[in-house]
């Protein structure tokens, strides 16, 4: 079955880049512009993994993550955070909020694919 990945980012260019990369690897991609949109999508459609930005208007990545993990549909779904910072404090927060992994920007397309493969097996 083709896996569906949700990309949440307020930056259209990053979303587009993530989407192109994943589609290029034969995955389905859904897009959302902030955490709340992402939450609405992820809890109503079948999503096999989420790649989300941290710093977003309306609802940021960590808030999304906490809320998503509390929803039945959000348990066990891999969520990858895109961060600009690589500091340990942030990673700790991310883990506590329920992140499966993270990618530090700027990243290469291969890195993204490798992480997606790692967490979904796709």
């Amino acid at each position, binding site marked *: 079955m083709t896996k569906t990945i949700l990309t949440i980012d307020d*930056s259209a260019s*990053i979303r587009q880049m993530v989407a192109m990369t994943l589609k290029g690897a034969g995955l389905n991609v859904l897009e959302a512009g902030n955490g709340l949109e992402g939450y609405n999508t992820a809890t109503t*459609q079948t999503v096999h993994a989420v790649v989300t930005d941290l710093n977003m208007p309306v609802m940021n990545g960590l808030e999304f993550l906490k809320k998503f993990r509390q929803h039945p549909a959000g348990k066990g779904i891999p969520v990858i955070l895109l961060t600009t910072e690589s500091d340990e404090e942030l990673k700790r927060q991310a883990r506590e909020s329920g992140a499966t992994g993270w990618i530090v920007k700027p990243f290469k397309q291969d890195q993204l694919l490798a992480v997606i493969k790692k967490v979904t097996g796709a």
Partner: protein
Amino acid sequence: MSNDPAETFRQEARELLEQLEQGLLDLEHNPADDDLVNAVFRALHTIKGSGAMFGFTDVASFVHEFETAFDKVRKGLSPITPELIAVALDAKDHVHALIEAPDSADGAGEPILAALRGIVEGDSFPDAPMIDPAPAAGVPLEPTGRWRIRFRLPADALVHGTNPMLLLGEIADLGPCEVTALVDAVPGLDVIDPESCLIGWQVDLTHADPVAALDDVFLFLKDGMELSIEPLAIATMSEPELPPAAEAILDILAEEVEALAVVADVPAPKAAKPSKEPREATVAKSETASTSMRVPAERLDELMDKVGELVIAQARLSQLAALSADGNLKTVAEELERLSSGLRDTTMGIRMVPIGTIFSRFRRLVHDLSRELDKEIEFITTGEETELDKTMIERLADPLVHLIRNSVDHGLESAEQRIKAGKSAKGTVRISAVYAGAEVAISVTDDGAGLNAARIRAKAEEQGLITPETRIADQDLYYMIFAPGFSTAKEVTSLSGRGVGMDVVKRTIDGLRGKIELTTRPGEGTTFTLRLPLTLAIVEGMLIRVGNGRYSIPLSAVEECVELPASVATHSRGRNFLDIRGSLVPFLRLRDLFNTPGEPDAHQKVVIISSGEGRAGLVVDQIIGNNQTVIKQLSHLHSGIETFSGATILGDGAVALILDTSRLVSYGQAYEEKFRNESGRAAA
């Protein structure tokens, strides 16, 4: 949307920079607003992140420094001052330059950053690493060995999306291995928490450098998990790990794990027994997330063109249907009419953009002008939400910039002059937009000195526009500032006063089928008002007939239609006024105006139209009905014709001219004034 993410980034960065500028300007007035500070910070952050992704490294590193400086502000370590805002705006401009023309922006960044640093307490900002430091290399180990790896994942690993099967798969890819589950921590099934990851694993692996390899495997988990790696003696390899009874339990648990792993694939409710409720139910209930997309403007133009053609074709069909006795054809024609008018409205709606999008640019302009001219200015905008056709808004930007410059530069006096005149030292420039019938009125108002009639007169004489003997009303004199090459500025400043401008403003507004009006009061200020049609493409029109010619009147300008009273029709050649419920409305006989040959119809109608400045009646032979008027511009050859604003194609293929209602109303007004003057003179 462009397929090139770099181009998308550019577009996005432009918008973010605009938001940034907006935020900075707002901050100047509300320095304590944390939301604004955060918005500014977020805009910077996104530009930095995306810039680095798409190879705009200069942008990313510059913004990084910018962001670091601004972080001090966010943390309350540095106050927001006008100087800080000014430098931050410069920095924003530099980022803009870096994105648009990286080569030309070389070297301009460092002084800006230095200034920025100077303001936020002269600190220097060490570059934070933008890339995750490479994981520490493993301890050198023997070339290839056999290793016993034991690991336990954090209890919440399954919920947090980690699939142990995939991790084991990754380990298996490293080399030959044997996997054993460690079930000692698994409690009885009656108390087991199915979401917790309670099983540990022991893997005997043959590999050269398992420390580094496993670092990769457990990349996201290594801080929260238990992991031990020990070299394995050959002898222990074949040792039976568990008694046979445990093997059986293990099989059951493996299934359990498999089931849990499935959780990662298909979201299931929390309960141990998966609920059988279909997920579709939740899908239907939830609201759709609102999304928007970018479309190139040309495609919208194309769409509008095609809708225009469709409307014409539909009009033709309606006409055929009206002549036909075929009921089915009539039904289809009506259906199509309804659909095409809906399609037209939607298409036009797509093209409507709130005018606030350009107002925000002006705030920067006023801010810069204020500093440059050393005039304190309050800039007020109202009616940002007023929507106008996108093409129109783009073409309005330049004229409005000019009007605002003009107001700030020529309109507002210096602080000393203002105080001397008994006004506050701070001048006000106001830009507002409101709907007025089928038009949008955009005004630029200043509370400055007002236009100087004497100086305009002198200049007009110097330019040869009038002679010293010419008698001219002040109001008409004021309009001379729109004459080409006209400028009264005593000295040319870099901002305005080169004499190119007001005439260009007028030309642009004319080109948009709009009008420019000005009112001024000495000592109190000047208002320029632009009146513009809502759209340039299609209007609802009222089709009328005069003689054999058909004409379209924009329906939004039509107030009512009345019969021309027989008495007025025949007798009042000299007095063209109608009594409309007590008020006198001047009327124009289109027959006379258009030199239409032949006899007028027996029962003529009057269409009362209005524009911002008044009302007028148009005497026509017949009112045919409503039609959707797709506006086609008249050729250059005909653009001088005053009473028509364009032409349209009717259902039968004939051409109808579109009446320029505001022009006709002013004809009516002029007529009224002339009549008043004459009757006044007669009375005297």
